[in-house]
């Protein structure tokens, strides 16, 4: 049984400026908000551009703002997003450069992640010759950028390193027992780094992978604050 959904999609083209287009879509409630967008592209408007790949929250490419909140539309079921006859207002991620329609340029995000250098997907399981139980857990951040979009601080400080990269930095310290390279440290311990956060916790609210970037930023702050205090009182080690 299909539902009748109204999609209000924010459109943008470099020459034509912005507008909102309305589409009527008939779709089963068990399919996703992203399926609806793909359906619009397939059957109604081939000019609509949007990003997507894995359709199960692992690639991190499809992030959007739906009804005012950052989501991964690939795991947002229609029935969880609205009701039969309901409306979905769809916009591109905020705080990113817009390319066209729902497509944003993720470059500013990946520049930050590359700076920290924490590999997100990596060889974590048993290699040939290793015992199968030498498996270790791996990182969950899918680099979707929802946190950067939701952050009210990034909104006014485009140089702010932002949640995911700061969370990655904390993780680097955790796995490498306390060490950050000088370059990374300079970027983190800086007015556009971890001290910029105002604890709105919006990154952790929207993160689809339970990374809790805000919690990690605060952990990093504690680490750095106590280290400074230690240095202040002249303690060694």
């Amino acid at each position, binding site marked *: 049984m299909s539902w009748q959904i109204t999609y209000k999609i924010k459109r943008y083209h470099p020459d034509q400026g912005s507008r909102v287009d309305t589409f009527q879509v008939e779709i089963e409630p068990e399919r996703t908000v992203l399926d609806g967008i793909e359906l619009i592209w397939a059957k109604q408007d081939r000019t609509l551009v949007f990003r997507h790949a894995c359709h199960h929250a692992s690639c991190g490419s499809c992030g959007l703002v739906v009804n005012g909140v950052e989501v991964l539309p690939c795991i947002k079921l229609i029935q969880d997003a609205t009701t039969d006859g309901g409306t979905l207002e769809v916009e591109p991620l905020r705080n990113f450069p817009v390319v066209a329609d729902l*497509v944003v340029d993720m470059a500013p995000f990946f520049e930050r992640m590359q700076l920290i250098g924490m590999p997100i997907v990596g060889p974590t399981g048993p290699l040939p010759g290793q015992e199968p139980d030498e498996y270790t857990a791996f990182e969950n951040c899918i680099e979707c950028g929802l946190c950067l979009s939701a952050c009210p601080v990034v909104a006014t400080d485009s140089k702010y390193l932002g949640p995911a990269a700061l969370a990655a930095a904390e993780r680097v310290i955790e796995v490498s027992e306390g060490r950050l390279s000088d370059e990374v440290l300079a970027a983190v311990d800086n007015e556009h780094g971890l001290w910029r956060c105002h604890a709105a*916790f919006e990154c952790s609210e929207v993160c689809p992978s339970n990374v809790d970037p805000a919690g990690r930023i605060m952990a990093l702050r504690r680490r750095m604050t106590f280290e400074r205090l230690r240095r202040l009182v002249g303690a060694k080690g």
Partner: protein
Amino acid sequence: MSSTEEYLEESKTYPGHKVRRPGSQVSRWFAPWKRGLGTWGFVLNRVAGLGLVLYLFLHLAVLSLLTRGQEGWDAFITLAKSPLFLLLDVVLLAGILGHGLNGLRVALIGTGLLVRWHRPLFIAVAVIAVLGLVAGALLFFSA
């Protein structure tokens, strides 16, 4: 606050295309709609903080009346005892309590302490602030 204007620049990801860099969106400091408790805390704290700064200036302006002699000051004191003004005092108290108490909360979690408790802490702050406010209002209007 770095104030960047919206501007077009060359994209590396999509060669041959210009992308539109978003400008600074101060409005998002004041938009907690559909957001979590953390953002409500952030927005209220900021609004109250700015309000307090505004109050500080007003307060200094009023104090400067003193330099102009007895009459002006007496006139002001009469005004200050009017119900409307007392109501404004209550708003001021709300700002002080909200900002001060939440400030303590932010200072705590901002140092990495009780981070997981940021939501209950916010509720605690709100409850204490409301109780303080009621007590304060009773005091103001009964005096």
